[in-house]
């Protein structure tokens, strides 16, 4: 199929339809409203349903309901709205209901603003809701990846019976780029042994997260932990471009990685050797891949559109094997490649102590 | 001929069935069930018309009624 020229938000919406998602529940909030606007037009024509809910709280719980019946469904929002969704995300994780949640990040805390930000890294990767759980967090850094990773999010959610989040931001959501709208092969996920559809010819079954029996909840938590361990082993995605002899490697995701890429390219053009590590899954985090680079003694520079969140995971991954520094820009100022280049150059000149 | 099947182990001795029995044929017996409640019993089988009110009013579906 010929490429189209599409907005990041619309790419997400188109990917959802291509992935067989027929049910969308959401609430308007800038800068993601293109998603519900697009889907409200398209879903009815593919036999689906679009519901503009009374709140983010309601929309995530509608997702819980639809997901519990095994149907592909999604919700989308932006930072403050994602905060409201945390209750339902915790319930979905606890009752192992698949579903896709898109966060086109704006800036906080509080009402913040509508500028791009990566301030929700902690909320997304630590699980902003209560309890001991994880969700998939996928971080696109182009319009094409907004599409590709949304398709992937549906598959991962179904495969592992858990919520999957696409963590984008205002920049990726609002910008236009060429897009290949490939049609994914429909994957069959057997939901016959858990999804609800009426107790026909079998006893009634439950999708629940309440476990009050002696030891039941501990057992449930350990079972979830085992699932998360398996995911950490199998599902990490990361783009590592750190050739031998690198003097520094930048670690950045999403839109920060785009900006960092230009800065890294410039440094290499100027004869330096600088690598780039771009985590695509923020959970599971590419711990082993970053440690491998650290073991080679390459200093690491985390670049983020916040005041320092992912850098903590980079440090944990490095385990002290190489120095980790941080350069960040909180919302309100979008760094240029020159800004990031400046940070790289300072470190190459030995001007930055380990944070 | 009325028949009451009373699942004594489920009775919580609330007395609602006795209160609403139009024939006053039920009473709390002396027998304790495993939960520690004194169970309801049919004290006057001849008076029972198998109207079913006891069964319907019981919050614990203790009593089933046939005739």
């Amino acid at each position, binding site marked *: 199929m010929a490429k189209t020229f599409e907005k990041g938000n619309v790419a997400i919406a188109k990917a959802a339809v291509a992935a067989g998602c027929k*049910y969308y*529940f959401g609430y308007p909030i800038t800068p993601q409203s293109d998603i519900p606007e697009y889907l409200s037009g398209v879903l009815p024509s593919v036999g689906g*349903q679009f*519901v503009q*809910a*009374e*709140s983010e*709280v*309601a929309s995530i*719980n*509608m997702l*819980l*309901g*639809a997901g*519990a*019946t095994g*149907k592909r469904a999604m919700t989308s929002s932006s930072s403050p709205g994602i905060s409201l969704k945390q209750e*339902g995300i915790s*319930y979905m994780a606890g*009752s192992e209901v698949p579903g896709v949640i898109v966060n086109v990040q704006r800036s906080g805390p509080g009402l913040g603003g509508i500028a791009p930000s990566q301030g929700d890294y902690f909320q997304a990767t630590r699980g902003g809701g209560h309890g001991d759980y994880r969700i998939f967090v996928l971080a696109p850094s182009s319009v094409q990846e907004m599409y590709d990773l949304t398709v992937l999010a549906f598959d991962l959610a179904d495969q592992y019976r858990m919520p999957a989040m696409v963590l984008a931001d205002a920049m990726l959501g609002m910008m236009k780029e060429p897009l290949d709208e490939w049609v994914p092969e429909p994957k069959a996920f057997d939901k016959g042994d858990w999804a*609800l*559809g*009426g*107790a*026909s*010819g079998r*006893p*009634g*079954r*439950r*999708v*629940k997260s*309440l476990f009050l029996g002696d030891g039941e909840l501990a057992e449930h938590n350990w079972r979830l932990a085992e699932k998360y361990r398996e995911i950490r082993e199998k599902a990490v995605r990361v783009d590592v471009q750190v050739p031998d002899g690198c003097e520094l490697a930048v670690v950045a995701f999403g839109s920060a990685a785009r900006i960092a890429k230009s800065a890294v390219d410039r440094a290499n053009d100027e004869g330096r050797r600088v690598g780039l590590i771009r985590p695509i899954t923020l959970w599971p985090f590419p711990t082993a891949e970053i440690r491998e680079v650290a073991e080679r003694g390459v200093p690491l520079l985390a670049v983020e559109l916040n005041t320092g969140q992912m850098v903590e995971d980079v440090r944990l991954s490095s385990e002290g094997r190489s120095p980790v520094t941080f350069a960040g820009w909180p919302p309100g100022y979008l760094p240029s490649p020159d800004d990031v280049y400046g940070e790289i150059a300072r470190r190459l000149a030995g001007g930055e102590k380990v944070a | *001929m009325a*028949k009451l099947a009373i699942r004594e*182990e*489920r009775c*919580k*001795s*609330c*007395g*609602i069935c006795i*209160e*609403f029995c139009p024939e006053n044929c039920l009473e709390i017996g002396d027998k304790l069930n495993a939960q520690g*409640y004194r169970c309801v019993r049919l004290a006057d089988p001849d008076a029972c018309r198998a*109207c*079913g*009110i006891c*069964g*319907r*009013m*019981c*919050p*614990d*579906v203790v*009593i*089933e*009624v*046939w*005739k």
Partner: protein
Amino acid sequence: MKAVFTRPESLTDKPFHFCPGCHHGVIHRLVAEAIDHYGVREKTIGAASVGCSVFLYDYFDIDVVESPHGRAPAVATGIKRANPDRFVLLYQGDGDLAAIGTAEIIHAANRGENLTVVFVNNTVYGMTGGQMAPTTLLGQPTTTSPYGREFGQDGYPIKMTEMLAQLEGVGYAARVAVDTPARLAKARKAVFQAFETQVEEKGMGFVEILATCPTNWGLPPLEAVKRVETEMIPYFPLGVYKERKGKDFL
């Protein structure tokens, strides 16, 4: 012999955990009778709420998804929109439906979701230990209104059925009680009507049932039953508040 009254098929054999004299058991049974009557057991998906009624999935032999506190109408909306041919049942208490979940029930009702809602009003938070509910009557002492509910401090008991009956999306709204055999018979009819409203796709079928909570009221079961008539019904009048005849949405 002919059966006069027997346990409905849709109820599992598990004994209720409810306190002596608690009306949840009676209401569970009425709901099970309706499931049996309309033959929907095998196509019913329940959205459980939070509170004493959360264990309904142990008592009904149906598929159930557990909802966060108050969110059952949203969860049920998701179920029904994705599965319009399924029968979707909600069973919520007053803390769940009339306090934390007010937005969800009002908007599910206003959207005209084809759902059946059984709302149990016992004027108190049961499972958490007898705290003041939005439906707690004026003067009624609870563990968080120790001097009795006072309107200057706590506002008035909320009348959900009257509110919801105003919404176009509601096909049927009634308030009933189960404290006497005669009212129980009417309550059964109302629960059936709330089922039929969904079967006929006339919007939300809503039935509020006044119920006892002897433990948290601090009353013996029979006195609790009497309180329904002496204190609750005068403030929460019984009756059918809305009954849509056809699919006459505006």
